[in-house]
């Protein structure tokens, strides 16, 4: 078995090492040409894996999951250089990893995963991003697409009216006191459940139970000010609330366990920690610029500024980052509450009561986790920036509800095509620190997308395809046209075929609320 990882033992029992011979591939030269730095050497390992060779001051190699088409899509993009940059950071364990939805970000590439040793490694806010714990959650309702059709427009309007969207959107009906905000920062989704924003059972279906060990005192006053009235709001850009239904099932037994039988209506939510998270990131980037100089860490990109994991700077950042992550968990919990209220208003109270949370997962986060690396158990700080945790069946951190099937993984696509539900695998656990892709990934710049969309009426086009759009801004809709994204089915094909995620079901959108 050709395998690009060095993280642990492979599922089938074969072993591998950093020095694994790399298969020469016909595409090698092309990949070299399309990266901006001619010194970057990329070789094909197998149909879904590419190795970025170690050179210069890199502490490890890069490992990119992609097929030939997705690699071609990276042409002109700086993301492979960013994979290389991350490989320079001190204490990196295993390769600098990129998922098939990789695209050019700032600091880490979007779709990047990197783990750092708890003693020699670092934590970098640039490896998490501004929208801390940006993530997705999926609800399954008891109604079918046939029940929904006659009332679809009413539900879309109701969701648009009850869940504020757009830039700086805020809730006039829920302005937190400072004490309540501290409760949110400390207890995340638990705080929301205690306040009556959803049933207790929801907590079983959230990564880390919807609460990370946080220190609200590490969050600045300005960040808290930005967070006071934004909890329960969508925000802008690629964030959304999407009503859809299950249109394909690949594993009936697992899909049924997740409440995702054919034709079942779902609600997909994508949002994060809003202005509070952006401010936490900004505050700690300032701290980390100073820390990098103080600890003598050489950086290939200033946005990768970082601090050693044991340092005071790192502890403060992790305390604040977890607080922002809790804010995001609470935010998505409140959005679910308002989605359920919308279902109650348009259908019935019973419909809302029988609407279950399938799962809620972060895709911008850094977490201490235990992994087996080259046969040894090691505690590492895993950075996932635009990547999803994908723990395998049997993992002790999973709630008993899903421990036998593995962690549900939610992969939203663009607003016009489809989204996927997968489960985590042993392959992901051994090769990618229990991580997989997070979405489709952009292939067109926003500027390009706007230009393409300008002469068209995208909302009308989508309506003709059976998808209602409710949006705060036309520009957002134009920038988010389906063709601006890679085909998420291709991204999911790669992770499924590479064994770092396993397909369960596909969802078809019918109504989308955007910022």
């Amino acid at each position, binding site marked *: 078995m050709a395998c690009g990882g060095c993280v642990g033992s492979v599922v089938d029992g074969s072993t591998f090492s950093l020095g694994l011979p790399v298969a020469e591939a016909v595409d090698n030269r092309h990949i070299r040409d399309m990266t901006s730095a001619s010194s970057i050497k990329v070789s094909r390992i197998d149909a879904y894996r590419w190795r970025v060779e170690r050179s210069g001051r890199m502490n490890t190699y890069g490992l990119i999951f992609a097929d030939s088409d997705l690699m071609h899509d990276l042409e*002109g*993009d700086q*993301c492979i250089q960013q994979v290389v940059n991350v490989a320079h950071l001190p204490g990196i364990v295993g390769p600098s990893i990129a998922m098939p939805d990789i*695209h*050019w*970000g*700032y*600091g880490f590439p*979007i779709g990047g995963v990197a783990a750092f040793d708890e003693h020699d490694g670092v934590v970098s806010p*640039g490896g998490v*991003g*501004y*929208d801390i714990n940006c993530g997705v959650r999926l609800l399954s309702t008891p109604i079918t697409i046939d029940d929904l059709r006659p009332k679809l427009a009413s539900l879309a309007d109701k969701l648009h009216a009850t869940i504020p969207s*757009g*830039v*700086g959107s805020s809730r006039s009906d829920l302005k937190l006191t400072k004490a309540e905000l501290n409760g949110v920062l400390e207890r995340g989704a638990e705080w929301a459940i205690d306040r009556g924003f959803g049933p207790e059972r929801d907590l079983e279906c959230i990564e880390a139970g919807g609460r990370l060990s946080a220190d609200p005192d590490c969050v600045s006053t*300005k960040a808290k*000010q*930005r967070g006071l009235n934004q909890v329960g709001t969508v*925000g*802008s*850009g690629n964030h959304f609330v999407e009503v859809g239904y299950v249109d394909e099932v690949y594993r009936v037994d697992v899909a049924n366990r997740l409440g995702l039988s054919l034709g079942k209506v779902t609600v997909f939510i994508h949002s994060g920690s809003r*202005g509070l998270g*952006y*401010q936490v*990131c*900004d505050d700690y*980037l300032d701290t980390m*610029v100073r820390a990098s100089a103080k600890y003598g860490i050489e950086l290939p*990109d*200033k*946005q990768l*500024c970082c601090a050693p994991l044991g340092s005071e700077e790192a502890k403060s950042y992790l305390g604040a980052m977890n607080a922002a992550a809790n804010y995001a968990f609470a935010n998505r919990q409140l959005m679910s509450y308002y989605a359920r209220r919308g279902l109650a208003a348009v259908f019935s109270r019973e419909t809302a009561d029988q609407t279950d949370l399938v799962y809620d997962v972060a895709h911008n986060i850094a977490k201490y986790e235990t992994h087996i690396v080259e046969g040894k158990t090691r505690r590492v700080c895993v950075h996932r920036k635009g990547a999803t945790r994908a723990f395998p069946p049997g993992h002790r951190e999973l709630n008993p509800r899903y421990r036998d099937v593995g962690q549900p993984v939610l992969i939203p696509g663009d607003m016009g095509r489809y989204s996927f539900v997968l489960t985590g695998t042993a392959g992901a656990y051994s090769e990618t620190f229990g991580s997989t892709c997070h979405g489709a990934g*952009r*292939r*067109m*710049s*926003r*500027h*390009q997308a706007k230009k393409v969309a300008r002469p068209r009426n995208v909302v009308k086009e989508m309506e003709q395809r059976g998808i209602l759009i409710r949006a*705060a*801004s*036309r*520009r*957002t809709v134009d*920038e988010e046209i389906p063709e601006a994204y890679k085909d998420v089915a291709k991204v999911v094909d790669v992770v499924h075929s590479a064994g770092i995620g396993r397909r369960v079901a596909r969802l078809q959108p019918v109504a989308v609320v955007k*910022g």
Partner: protein
Amino acid sequence: MSYRFLPHTADLILEISGASLADLFNDATSVMRALTVGNGLVEATESHLIELQASSPDELLIRFIRELLVHFQIDTFVPANLVIYRLSPSRISATVHGERFDDSKHEPQPEIKAATRHRLSVEEVEGGWHAVVVLDL
């Protein structure tokens, strides 16, 4: 006014050129106005004092952009123009005039989360100043 956006897959690369450092900050204010309300008219009915210090001109510029973003996020304040009192590569003292976002005349734009340090540069060049900032959308 001289600024343009360079191609970037997911975010926005902003390039500004100015005859002076003051031009650069004035242009940054205009860009932030355009990025928050598009072409809509912004009147000067409200003002905020901005006093910032930084170790270098690039740090000063991203702190300045950040300050404008925070005013927009917290109070929906949209900048119209800038009156500079003191400016050096490490310090700015200025008043930004503008008004709060108004649905009736302003078109909402996608949210700018932050000004990043990725490929950040602010340099004195022949004939003025040149800056590159990647904005996270």
